[in-house]
């Protein structure tokens, strides 16, 4: 291997544990693939939205240790300006308006928002969140729907007054315009997640005045119920479409930011916002806001207390389950997992999380497996044997060993496969899966296919069409040699062996740590600028604590100094 090729492979290895690099040094597979920005291999910022990925050849000049890089260049990745994800937007709006999270409207609202790219199982990568007018339009539509839900059973002006907390005056009358303004001011205070400025209150006043003028021009009764509703709806729209709500605006603590090149410590309010969205996917709660008042959140022990509390809350558990399900690709497969299977998976994840089970249990815990003959047995397959997972990675009629193998290799082990099909790729449409498997074992296919075909072959007993377990399905062979991906390697007979190899490895937990690190920093990783060191440190802290549970990992993230810093 020449020096240039080694360089490219080293680029691939950036951001992964050193052990992962040995896997990437497989001959032939990865030459020419230069993008490590997105864990799913996406280009990590096409369009230039502050891309932290190297974008292929453009990144050549910024190699770690590259003499072309000025010595004084800051060794950190700039914090991107991030936007709320669809889930975060809906959760936050529902919280602001006091709508039940499980209401039909709230649950359905996310699907009405503009779609957002999935980057390695996460939707919060700031460099892939470019706004379009369709997105803004969808926010506006959902804002209206949420306002309608908030006022759902309001049929009189008095009922509306009560709904927005208006109190009768001495004469038994409501000052609804005044109450509307107060409602707006309160909404702004909560939504903007910081102290409200005088000008912002004036803006609400001004907006209500303009709506009043509009009503006048349209010869509408300003005291009619519909007129009051229009005022409220307009305020809600303004608030939910405002940059102060939609974007995670961070300015730093007072007195910070004198050196434009130096990291800035966040204000308490900003730390509270990071904590809340990272751990619960919604606005800071009262306990966090109380510590904002006391300016205590720079203290890692205080953050840890909040983390323990929030991760045990319903919102924290839901956030975790949803994040992990998304990462496991459960909702993105071509074959839908049925509701019962999806619920079983959620329950499994929730148990693993809340009971603080060790990391290895994810791939090794006993689960109930449904067989093709209708029987059920308990098997040590962990999530790898959950029907929702297996079915989600079954793009029938593509042979299951390909689909499943690619997912395990790329997503669960954070290894990168080539982005292109070689010019002499096999056209195997007329072949049976077994024939395809056998052909793939020969060169030139084997160079790459031997990796994911063998990882996927471990799932051969899970039917591609039904995802049910069939002990007699051994047509691909009885044992498969896993090519080394980090420290995962060796012969396996089935999913139990694969789970054993993954659960006991360093590669799989490192990959999990990378997921949550990316979620925390809301961007793809850039090993050149310190992500490799930060991630390595995080993994050492987590794994070195003796507690390999996920709560331990998340707590290690929020307790770190980087978590409360803004990198300009």
């Amino acid at each position, binding site marked *: 291997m020449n020096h240039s090729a080694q360089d490219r492979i080293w680029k691939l290895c950036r951001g992964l544990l050193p052990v992962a690099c040995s896997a990437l040094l497989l001959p032939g597979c990865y030459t020419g693939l230069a993008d490590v920005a*997105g864990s799913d291999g996406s280009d990590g910022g*096409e369009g230039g939205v502050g891309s932290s990925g190297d974008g292929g050849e453009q990144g050549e000049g910024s190699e770690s240790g590259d003499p072309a890089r000025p010595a004084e260049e800051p060794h950190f990745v700039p*914090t991107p*300006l991030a936007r709320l994800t669809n889930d975060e937007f809906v959760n936050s709006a529902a919280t602001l308006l006091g709508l039940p999270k499980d209401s039909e409207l709230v649950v359905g609202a996310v699907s009405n928002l503009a779609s957002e790219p999935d980057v390695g199982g996460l939707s919060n990568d700031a460099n892939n969140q470019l706004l379009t007018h369709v997105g803004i339009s969808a926010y506006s539509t959902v804002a209206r729907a949420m306002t309608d839900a908030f006022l759902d059973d309001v049929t009189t002006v008095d009922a509306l007054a009560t709904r927005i907390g208006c109190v009768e005056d001495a004469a038994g009358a409501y000052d609804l315009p005044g109450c509307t303004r107060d409602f707006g001011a309160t909404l702004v205070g909560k939504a903007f997640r910081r102290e409200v400025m005088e000008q912002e209150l004036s803006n609400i006043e001004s907006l209500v005045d303009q709506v009043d003028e509009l009503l006048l021009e349209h010869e509408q009764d300003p005291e009619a119920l519909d007129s009051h509703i229009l005022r409220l709806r307009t305020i809600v729209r*303004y608030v939910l479409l405002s940059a102060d709500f939609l974007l995670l605006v961070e300015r730093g603590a007072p007195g910070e930011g004198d050196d434009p090149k130096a990291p800035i410590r966040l204000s308490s309010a900003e730390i509270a916002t990071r904590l809340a969205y990272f751990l619960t996917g919604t606005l800071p709660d009262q306990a966090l806001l109380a510590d904002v008042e006391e300016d205590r959140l720079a203290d890692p022990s205080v953050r840890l207390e909040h983390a323990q509390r929030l991760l045990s809350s319903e919102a924290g558990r839901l956030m975790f389950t949803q994040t992990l399900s998304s990462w496991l690709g459960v909702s993105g497969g071509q074959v839908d997992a049925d509701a019962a299977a999806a619920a079983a998976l959620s329950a499994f994840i929730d148990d693993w999380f809340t009971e603080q089970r060790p990391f290895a249990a994810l791939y090794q815990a006993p689960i109930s497996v449904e067989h093709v003959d209708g029987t059920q047995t308990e098997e040590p397959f962990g999530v790898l044997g959950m029907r929702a997972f297996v079915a989600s990675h079954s793009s029938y*009629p593509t042979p299951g060993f390909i689909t499943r193998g690619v997912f395990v290799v790329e997503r669960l082990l954070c290894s990168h496969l080539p982005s*292109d099909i070689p010019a002499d790729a096999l056209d195997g*449409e007329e072949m049976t899966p077994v024939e395809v498997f056998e052909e793939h074992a020969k060169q030139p296919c084997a160079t790459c296919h031997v990796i994911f075909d063998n990882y996927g072959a471990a799932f051969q007993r899970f039917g591609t069409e039904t995802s049910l377990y069939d002990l007699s399905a051994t047509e691909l062979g009885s044992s498969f040699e896993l090519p080394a991906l980090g420290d995962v390697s060796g012969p396996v007979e089935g999913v139990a062996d694969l789970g054993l190899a993954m659960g006991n490895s360093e590669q799989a937990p490192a990959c999990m740590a990378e997921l949550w690190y990316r979620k925390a920093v809301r961007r793809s990783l850039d090993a050149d600028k310190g992500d490799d060191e930060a991630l390595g440190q995080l993994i050492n802290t987590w794994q070195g604590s003796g507690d390999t549970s996920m709560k331990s990992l998340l707590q290690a993230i929020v307790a770190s100094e980087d978590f409360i810093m803004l990198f300009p």
Partner: protein
Amino acid sequence: MTVDEGITSVGSKQNRRKFLKAASGLLAAPFLSFRAPRARAAGAPPLRLMTIMDSYGVPTTNRGETWIDSAVGDYALTNDSLGTILAPLSSYRDNMLVISGLRLDSAIVMNDAATHDRITGQTLTGSRLVDSVTGSAGTQHHASVDVHIGKYLSDDYGLTFPRIYSHLFLSDYSEASKTTFCFNEQGSQIRSISGVGNIVGTLFGSSEDANAVLLDTRAQQLALDLVHERLQSVRGELVNANAATVMDAYESSVDELATELELRANLQCTPPDITGAPDNGARNASSTPFIFASIYQAFACDLASSITYAIGGETINQLKYQFLYDQEAHNDESLLDLLKKNFHAASHRNDPAADKAHELVRTYQAGLLAELLDKMSTTPDIDGSSTMLDNTVIFVTSAMSNNTHKRGDYCHLLLAGSNTNLRGGFHYDCSGSTNNDLLTTIAGGLTLPDTSFGGYDASGTRLEQLNHGPITKMLKA
């Protein structure tokens, strides 16, 4: 990588909102309509493009019976030359350009035989996707032809009045990562507006009382103005490296929505009746007639220059066609199974049942298209001097050439109105021409001056051998 949603641009000229404000007197008199009259300048017919994109094309078996009598040579079409799939369109034979023998060379060079997302990303661009990983959204080097033509017709063609949308991408049911037909000018994937309800809601708005809608629109504009004002303040406080890019996009998005609202407020366009339509998320092919009705209404209201419809959600094998099964006529459980369970599976087989499934689906879709043409051919266009069909080019194309994931010998169909530059009524044997040449020809059919289209490889190198210019025999001039 970025992903757009459904609509490529609104008010695509940079100064359009200002223009509209001035034109409508928005600042001084917000409710003054500028719409009427919408007559266009003489000599500039309101040309438009509709693209219907399926995934699997036409089965190779019995093409002589199902598609066209002979794929060899150029000849004038007769009813006898039309196969079972094209027969429902026989009333529009003189508008038809039936194309055989075309090579999707961009795919041949790329050797992306069976990967849906890659081939679908190439058909309307004639270029290879920028390196990407299967399953992730693709990125192209340039806009797809439908977007390109839509932009031209909206911005440069010389329309007297602006259309709200230069391009719309619609689908029955979308799995975004696989639906990579359309790309914007930056080469980013455009995701479709999916489902009947979403399409009608996006294009035609609420069905509330008109005055209430207008009030809500105006109030929404007030909120947007304040949002815009706040953006200016926030911008100055940000230290993030990507702040300028994010804020630019934010501002232009708010501005474009305001433009759309202004255009919509001045446009009276009745939504199509979608009573009985399946839910947005339903995997039900009965959504197709409702989406055709939405496209008709969008064109009738002159909302868009170019609309692309990914018909049937075929890349994701989700839509069900069991209603096409006739027990008496078909009596084939295997066929029924394919139609009701997994239409995609029929694309991996070339047995009689799979071929029949494709023939039934294509024939059904052609019948619905014929109904759309019936309406377009009898509806006066916005210029008052021609019918909608006269000014429309309909491009029926496929991601793959046939139902076994192949990429050679594509069957394409164009339906061209009399005011376009395409010469209808013929079968064209395009052996020796490329997909790029056809895309150039379609552009020329809609007055674009292009002499080539696409032809880039993954690294962005132009492969000159892919472009030979427009296929002149298909053009009037």
